[in-house]
């Protein structure tokens, strides 16, 4: 079983690597074709992805919606910045709670590794200024409802993970 590595780079980035035995062409397709994304980008068992829009070209649209089948769900939107077939994807995304969260910049590289693929994903955490702003104003301006929703989602996920 291929092992995932997850590290933080300072307090601004998270870097994830994962090796797949399939070649980059297929791993890239699995990240860019909705019919394939809907089969794996799901989170805990029991969740589905009723909406999956992914236009893998610069300026292309991203919209993913997830549901646990019990009325819990959320969605993200985003834009593709760069899409080099079988090689690299760059995009931005944000959650809607329903207020949009700050943009998260993600760069995903697909590198040939023997006969398989080494995938490297680099995500940008919100910068200190953004986090300061969110922490300072979010509470004052009634993000409680959004936070409560996040907590209930987090709880639903944790309950599933501990029951696995």
């Amino acid at each position: 079983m291929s092992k995932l590595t997850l590290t933080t780079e300072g307090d601004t980035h998270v870097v994830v690597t994962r090796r797949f035995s399939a070649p980059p062409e297929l791993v890239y397709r699995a990240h860019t074709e909705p019919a394939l994304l809907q089969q794996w980008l799901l989170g805990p068992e029991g969740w589905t992805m009723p909406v999956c829009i992914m236009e893998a070209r610069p300026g292309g649209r991203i919209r993913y919606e997830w549901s646990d089948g019990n009325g819990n769900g959320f969605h993200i939107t985003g834009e593709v910045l760069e899409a080099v077939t079988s090689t690299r994807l760059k995009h931005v995304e944000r959650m809607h709670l329903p207020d949009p969260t700050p943009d998260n910049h993600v760069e995903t590289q697909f590198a040939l590794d023997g006969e398989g693929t080494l995938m490297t994903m680099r995500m940008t955490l919100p910068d200190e200024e953004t986090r300061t702003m969110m922490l300072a104003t979010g509470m004052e301006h009634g993000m409680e409802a959004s936070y409560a929703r996040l907590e209930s989602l987090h709880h639903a996920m944790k309950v599933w993970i501990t029951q696995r």
Partner: protein
Amino acid sequence: MFMLYNIYIMILADAAFFALADSTRRAILVRLAQGDATVAELKEPFAISQPAVSRHLKVLEAAGLISRRAQGASRPCHLEAKGFESIDRWLSTMRETMELNFTRLDNVLQQMPSTAPTSC
């Protein structure tokens, strides 16, 4: 994606990341790891004002990384180890979720024909 969801659990669940993103605050935590200290004692190594130190302590306290006993004018600060748990929890939740997704992806990839036409 769930990775982003987990990032917002990080923001939601803890001001700890923010608290740790400052070298003065990190140095304060190192000092407190050696034992409780008052605000005046904590200020000593730094060329900043007492109000500035107090602001840093407020951030650390809001993040649950330190606690302060109300003991008159000199309120000793205490390192709270459980404040660091939220970061670990976020990282492990993210890791678990991604491992689930990638295990599924392994299965999806296995079922794909190896010479498939690509559409650009």
